[in-house]
């Protein structure tokens, strides 16, 4: 039973593509279930190729799920009235390049059935809000990726939708652009809009979401409220200790023998340790005893990035390519 407050629900969503001459199966998304409640903000995260865009295309009825069900405002996504309440920003958005931002928004406004005077009022206002007022009447051909992204966001807001579905809203932007879009999204969230957005970069979205769903190879690897997932209430500390070279092994064994101490990184004689905060006095005593040096001591909490690395079996390298998973299926 769908609750009134569930504006988006995926139930065991799965999508299999068939590629190539032989119709080889590619499972892009498998068994994803999630619920987005009114006013909530959900980050849909995962490395490139993990199935985020595919899921979003299913939510907007651009493609049909192979298995599972989607409820958008309680209706099937093929329902135009349900989609009317969604503002969608496609991944790397692209619009007719012979149109100007004003014309693109006018076209979109007509599809929403907005009357002429409303369009005339809202379009310059939105383009202004997105910092595009200077380029309002220039053809999109020749716009930078960041400017297209802004046009995409402007058109997503035209119908004053309840739910915003943004596919990689921050990718392709320069640092200032990222900051501005992040601030805009935070503002929209404060205005009471529900947010569903995907990202393959985790560092700058933590502050934007209440809950996350992390995908890897089409499967959910972690899901839930950010506060639960990141154990924010748990007090942990992090210490960087440099050991004396002559008694390296015994000193190391001694520190690691303390209750709750974990070795997270080892750089020659320098150890990065994670420990419960109440063990800190014990650690400092042991450090003095072993003639080691305490380089750093800080309060620690998990970051989304760490959670992600811990959950996702393999990492995203800098060029966005993923290392192949050993013994991968298919």
């Amino acid at each position: 039973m769908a609750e009134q407050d569930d504006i988006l629900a995926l139930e065991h969503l799965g999508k299999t593509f068939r590629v190539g001459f032989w119709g080889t199966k590619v499972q892009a998304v498998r068994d994803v279930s999630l619920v987005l409640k009114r006013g909530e903000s959900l980050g849909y995260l995962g490395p490139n190729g993990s199935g985020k865009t595919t899921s979003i295309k299913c939510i907007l009825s651009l493609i049909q799920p192979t298995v599972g069900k989607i409820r958008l405002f309680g209706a099937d996504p093929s329902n135009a009235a349900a989609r009317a309440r969604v503002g969608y920003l496609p991944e790397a958005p692209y619009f007719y390049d012979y149109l100007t931002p004003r014309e693109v928004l006018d076209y979109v406004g007509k599809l929403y059935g907005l009357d002429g005077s409303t369009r005339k009022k809202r379009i310059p206002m939105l383009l202004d809000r997105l910092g595009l007022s200077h380029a309002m009447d220039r053809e999109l051909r020749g716009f930078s990726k960041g400017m297209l992204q802004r046009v995409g966001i402007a058109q997503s807001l035209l119908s004053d939708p309840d739910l915003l579905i943004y596919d990689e809203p921050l990718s392709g932007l320069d640092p200032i652009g990222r900051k501005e879009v992040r601030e805009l999204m935070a503002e929209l969230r404060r205005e009471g809009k529900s947010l569903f957005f995907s990202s393959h970069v985790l560092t700058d979205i933590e502050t934007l979401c209440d809950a996350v769903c992390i995908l890897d190879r089409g499967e959910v690897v972690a899901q839930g409220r950010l506060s639960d997932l990141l154990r924010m209430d748990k007090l942990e500390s992090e210490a960087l200790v440099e050991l004396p070279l002559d008694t390296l092994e015994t000193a190391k064994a001694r520190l690691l023998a303390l209750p709750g101490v974990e070795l997270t990184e080892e750089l020659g004689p320098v150890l990065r340790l994670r420990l419960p905060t109440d063990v800190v006095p014990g650690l400092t005593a042991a450090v003095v005893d072993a003639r080691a040096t305490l380089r750093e001591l800080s309060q620690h909490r998990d970051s989304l990035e760490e959670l992600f690395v811990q959950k996702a079996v393999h990492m995203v390298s800098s060029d966005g390519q993923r290392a192949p998973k050993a013994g991968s299926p298919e």
Partner: protein
Amino acid sequence: MSVQTTHDKLTLRIDGPVAAFSRIFTVAGNTLREAGRNKLFFGLLGVTILMLIFSVLLSDLALADQKIRLVTDFGLAVIPLVCIATAVLLGAVLLYKEIDRKTLYAILPKPIRRSEFLLGKFLGLSLLLFGQLILLAVCWAGVLHLRGGTFSMALAQALGLNYIEILLVTSAALFFSALSRPVLSGVLTLGVFLVGRITYVINDLMQATKGAFAEVPAMRALGRVLVAIVPDLSTFNIADELQAGVSLPPDYFVHATLYGLSWVGFFVALSLIVFERRDLV
């Protein structure tokens, strides 16, 4: 399932036939606008107008009583062909371009049905071709006038039937472009056009006592299939009758139009079915 669409501030008009037609016209308008920036389209148009003018120069070489005849025949043959070529070229990429350039991804999630989008694209292209036909006809009429001829009612009727043929080819292009990629859909559309123009020849060959179509069973079967699945486009070409001075009964035009529009309806319906279920990846 009813979904609330009225916000505090904004009213979205998305229900009912008026809103649906308005969306179709919005898409059609944009399709026209896109063609208006298409170099290929204007190139073809310019070349044709030059050819019409050239036919006047050419007619200087003809005998006195053949001059008007030459310009008339030339226009009657070339104008429909140019419009058909435009229909094939623009029709083949009509949907593919939107998918390839990802412009569709921003449009279809809006409260528009896929059928409305498709009908809008078809309407836009049909209007464009109508404009093209009218423009060429006006140029042709001017050229005829220069030669001392007149643009008769019969010629207008002939072009009217040609427009039905153009619509038919456009709808075939729409169907193939909903189904496949540009090159293939262009080739298939061209195939329908070429075979369609000569179905009567194939028919005649099958009736004949000699020749491959009459004698080889496999060819006979192929001929039958072709004649059955491809519209007979000679219905819409009455140049020969005009030349022979045969006047066609009004019935003929009504039947030809109905025949043509049935095929258009068939192709459009097939396109809708194909496009409705297609994954847009």
